């Protein structure tokens, strides 16, 4: 047996071994989906579709789950996760929206307009922002941004206007969106820059030759042709924003609260908690069966969401391939 292993490998054996390694990746995905779905099932089974709705106070429901025993009754599985879903959607949407504008402008700047001296700074900066761990973003958010907003930006009238609904302290939706935007921008910039580089130069030069200015040529020819890459980048960044747990749990105020857009600008100061942040914060009490099932249900929703976003970015990237450039 050992002697057989020492022999030089045949192609067939090497191919089989490498193929098996590659297939283990697929096995991981299948196991992940199956295991999480099994664990999540009791929560969905006991709540039905009202899992996605808003019923009762979500924080109280989660607290009750921690205290429920080893064999919780169906009533103790009750969960209306809408405030958490709503918070996830809000942070993800706004961060992607602002990040898209920010990264598109920055990418155009990097590719076309930045003087060499600035480009030498901005490219390492993008790499730096991509490399900074999320917990450091969270630390800066909670120790710098949140106190600043809580003490200097939120006025006393704004605090008193909602004091019977929710106390405002500075941590909240706005800080979460701001930090999340900075976190996901580097990914979008990277993909957009690659997309813009992939567009043949001649197209833009044709536009320049027709007499439009450089900005207009960039905007209406190169950016338009690179739209698939921009969308793919935005979708990938959305997936990153969707699953961000630690940073959000640090800066978003950590309350299962649904901010009300009718509150005006105060909306952005109101605390939220996303699904991913809920999972991280309740990880210690995951041994209570009701809590465990609820957390796995949230993970399943996130997993399915991320899966569809991966699919979306793949679909968005297809038109780029026809230019025959590297994806």
């Amino acid at each position, binding site marked *: 047996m050992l002697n057989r292993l020492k022999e030089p490998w045949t192609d067939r054996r090497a191919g089989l071994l490498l193929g098996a390694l590659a297939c283990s*990746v697929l096995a991981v995905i299948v196991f992940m989906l199956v295991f*999480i779905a099994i664990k999540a099932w009791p929560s969905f089974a006991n709540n039905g579709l009202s899992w996605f709705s808003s019923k009762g106070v979500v924080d109280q429901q989660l607290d009750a789950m921690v205290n429920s025993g080893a064999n919780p009754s169906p009533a103790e599985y009750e969960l209306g996760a809408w405030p958490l879903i709503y918070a996830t959607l809000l942070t993800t949407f706004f961060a992607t929206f602002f990040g898209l504008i920010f990264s598109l402008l*920055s990418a155009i700047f990097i590719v076309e307009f930045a003087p060499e001296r600035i480009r030498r700074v901005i490219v390492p900066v*993008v790499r730096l922002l991509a490399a*900074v761990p999320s917990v450091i973003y969270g630390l800066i958010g909670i*120790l710098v941004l949140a106190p600043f907003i809580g003490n200097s930006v939120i006025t006393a009238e704004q605090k008193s206007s909602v004091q019977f609904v929710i106390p405002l302290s500075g941590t909240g939706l706005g800080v979460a969106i701001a930090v999340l935007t900075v976190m996901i921008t580097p990914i979008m910039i990277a993909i957009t820059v690659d997309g813009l580089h992939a567009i043949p130069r001649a197209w833009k030069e044709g536009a320049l030759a027709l007499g439009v200015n450089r900005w207009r040529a960039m905007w209406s020819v190169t950016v338009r042709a690179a739209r698939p890459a921009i969308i793919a980048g935005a979708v990938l960044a959305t997936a990153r924003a969707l*699953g961000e747990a*630690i940073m959000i749990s640090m800066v978003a105020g950590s309350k299962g609260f649904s901010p009300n857009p009718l509150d005006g600008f105060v909306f952005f100061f109101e605390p939220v908690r996303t699904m991913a942040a809920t999972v991280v914060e309740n990880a210690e009490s995951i041994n209570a069966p009701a809590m465990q099932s609820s957390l796995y249900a949230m993970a399943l929703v996130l997993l399915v969401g991320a899966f569809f976003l991966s699919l979306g970015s793949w679909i968005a990237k297809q038109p780029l391939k026809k230019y025959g450039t590297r994806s």
Partner: protein
Amino acid sequence: MSVPTRPGGAAPPLPPLPLPRSPGGGGRQGRSPKKRRVNESISTWRLTDRIGYVLMWAAGLLLCAIGIGILAYMAFKGVQYLRPQLVLTSPTADIDQSSSGGFLDPLLGTILITLIGIAIATPIAIGAATWIVEYGRPTWLARLIDSGIEIIAGTPDIVIALFGLVLFQQGIFGWMSFTATGGAVFGRSFLTAGAMMSLIALPMVFAATREGLQSIPLHIREASYALGKTKAATIRRVLLPSVKANISTGAALGMGRIAGDTAIIVVLLGASLTLDPEGDVPGLNVLKGTGGTLTSYVYNNSPAGEGNAPQKAYAAAFVLLLIVLALNFAVDLIARSGAKTGLETSRLGAR
């Protein structure tokens, strides 16, 4: 010095000089890709274009300001609070900040978990990338695996953490972590967390290796076959050595990603202050035990966690940032010395 020449000689030549240059630079086709003079004035542009141009400059400069601001702030706080004894003492749970110790254990935890994670991820990623580029039959399977890795790259780390918890609480993985007397498996240990961390690093090593293999021209393989080498020997002796630089770039990036991850640590490593060995086999007991890393230390010592010691959080975050930046710097060094690819997107965690 130049006063005498100015009124007499310089005045006539100066105006004509820029004049032929400015229409000439725009009109002539003598454009070099690097240096292109901007000769048109923005003031002739349409208002919307001007607004867009200004916004673009603002975005670019804001990006620089944010990046440099974060770096400078963390460096300032780090230098302010980081003391040698913080790195050299183990943390203890104490309300009094002067006696709650440093973060030696979390630092060791970070190093340990990074090594475990990358040790698991690299062989799998290299194997998968090699199979896809060199074998890749049947095509549908190769495409499926390719998109499978993309899906793993897009999966939130918190979902991976919960998956690890349920997976390693199965009985057959009992040897990897603490098993209670009733037979219930705890599921949290350096081994289990490292195994899940490998999923974070895997896409980056995979992407780097695949890019490297794809950039090797076909005739190199054919030359090897012509010398009578088998395909397996070609892969081992020719192809993999020549993508060593790519693999190391991917691995360094993956290590940076592992060192910076918090969610898996909180869920799967227990995020305790000190390393808590489990069992009595030296070496294995640490791997089977729980612990914490710098990320969980920062998280716990931030106002969001239980510790609430911002100074120590800043100091630990600074050390963590240094580790991550060192890994990124290593990527730059390796890339400059030999990796053939740009890696612009894959190094930023997107493919």
